[in-house]
């Protein structure tokens, strides 16, 4: 269960908007400072850990660069909710421990709305509007991987347990 303010974006937010190509050489801390700036110059300054990114169709479409997901994670974004995702971004996000939820009704959520999200139940509550939306729930094994911080720490833990 998580709660945070909604930062709302439209359709087709691509990996160049999330992790601009010209900043790709920089370390993640510096690169993340440019995340989403081409569509919302104030985003990085106002986003706080726990906030939630809400978007339309095809979020994360484009290249396979993992930094697109890593930048959001680095900024403390707790979760991304979108009508649909670019498939490589979708994989990368979960493998980096960033929950992503598919929900057809993101158009009803407005900038700044207070959201409560339960990825296990696939439930999104817009407290500001008093509305509730259904998302596709994430299966247990993915929730466990997210809780461990992503694929690499998750497997590290699993193999350490096996040895113990």
């Amino acid at each position, binding site marked *: 269960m998580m709660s945070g303010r909604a930062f709302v974006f439209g359709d087709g937010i691509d990996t160049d908007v999330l992790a601009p190509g010209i900043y790709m050489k920089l370390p993640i801390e510096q690169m993340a400072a440019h995340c989403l700036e081409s569509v919302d110059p104030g985003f990085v300054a106002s986003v706080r850990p726990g906030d939630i990114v809400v978007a339309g169709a*095809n979020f994360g*479409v*484009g290249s*396979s660069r*993992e930094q697109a997901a890593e930048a959001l994670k680095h900024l403390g974004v707790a979760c991304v909710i979108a009508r649909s995702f*670019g*498939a*490589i971004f*979708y*994989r*990368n996000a*979960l*493998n980096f421990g960033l929950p992503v939820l*598919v929900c057809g009704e993101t158009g009803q959520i407005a900038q700044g709305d207070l959201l409560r999200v339960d990825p296990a139940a696939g439930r999104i509550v817009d407290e500001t509007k008093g509305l509730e939306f259904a998302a*596709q729930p*994430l*299966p247990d*094994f*993915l929730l466990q991987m997210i809780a461990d911080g992503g*694929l*690499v720490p998750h*497997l*590290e833990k699993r*193999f*350490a347990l096996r*040895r113990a």
Partner: protein
Amino acid sequence: MAMTLAEKLLARASGRAAVSPGDILTCAVDLAMIHDSGGPRRVAPILKRWGVGVWDPNRVALISDHYVPAVDDETRRIAEVTRAFAIEQKISNFYEAEGICHVVLPERGHLRPGMFVVGGDSHSPTGGAFGTYMFGIGATEMAGVLATGEIWVRVPETIEITFDNAFGAAVVAKDLMLFLCGRMGMDGGRSQAVQFSGAAIRKLGMQERMTLANMTAELGGQVGLIEPDDVTVSYLRAAGVTSGDVSTWRSDEDAERAEHHRFDAAALSPYVAAPHSPANSAPVGEMDPVSIDVAYIGACTGAKLVDLRMAAEVLRGRRVAANVRLLVAPASRRDQDMAAREGIMAVLEEAGASLLPNACGICAGYGGTLDEGVTCLSSTARNFKGRMGAASSRVYLGSPYTVAASAVTGRITDPRILLAEGAPR
């Protein structure tokens, strides 16, 4: 429940009776393919951190093809790291300098209909030509697969693309894919499962089908599937595979497709893509007859036996224009040997081609690169800015027919013109 081919393959891999788009599954991996560039040097440190080895050495294929041959200390070190990994992890399916991974894998009988395979390379959808669910993943995910033998998948929707009738003379798989990239865009496949069907597709041989499936990567699909049939079975027999059932692996008639596109194969002409995107394509007749400096017949999509045959058909009895360098990097040693037996290698050499090793060559700028300002027409799959060398080099894409014809005239040329003239004496 009616299912598409992609859904049936994922149901098998996840041990379920039925799956639907959107389902998130854990799948058992039948085979993991890695190469020298994205393989051992990237995954070995992660496996070490976890303190584990590969889950099943017999289900891993390792191919050295990108940094082949080694030319300096760095590439020699990569070759060493790759060999050491094969020995340490007891990987017997290790092929060094035998050819490009996507071509070597099926030619050695590693792919069969119904399998679920991951590859550490973006052109891994090539395996879909065999009715294999095969897709590309990054090095971190590959380390996870090598350690566990498992990977999670979100079941994609299926986009079916049908080509009716038959392709005309000198119109081949490369033309079809450049046409589709131009028509649908580089993300026209929307990360979904693309399935190719229709009478024109069924008439294609296996290596042409591989080119089709391979470039599903350019369309942005996760996999590019073709239902296996008699053509598949005879290829597999020649590769020493006798097991495997083909009849199960087809889409049910009434299974749901997210999109269905239909085209008339007979209406297609040879296609060329201009710099710097495969989607920047048009029929060769509508392209400016740009002068070229380099003609490249190479890569997993452009230098298999069938591709070499196409080039030789045009080049027989002809010579490359004085100001053009024709480079040929046959996609595998076996294909080159077979081409030599057919007299094709002699035709290419007599035409003035220079031969490069059986490897990725200049396709991604590994084995040599294009100089500043050079214009190249290439039979490869991608022409992104700077991929083959200098950022100022300009790369056009075309079929082996078109590359060969343009090498002769010195500018981008419709191969049908030369083919209609017949071989000069």
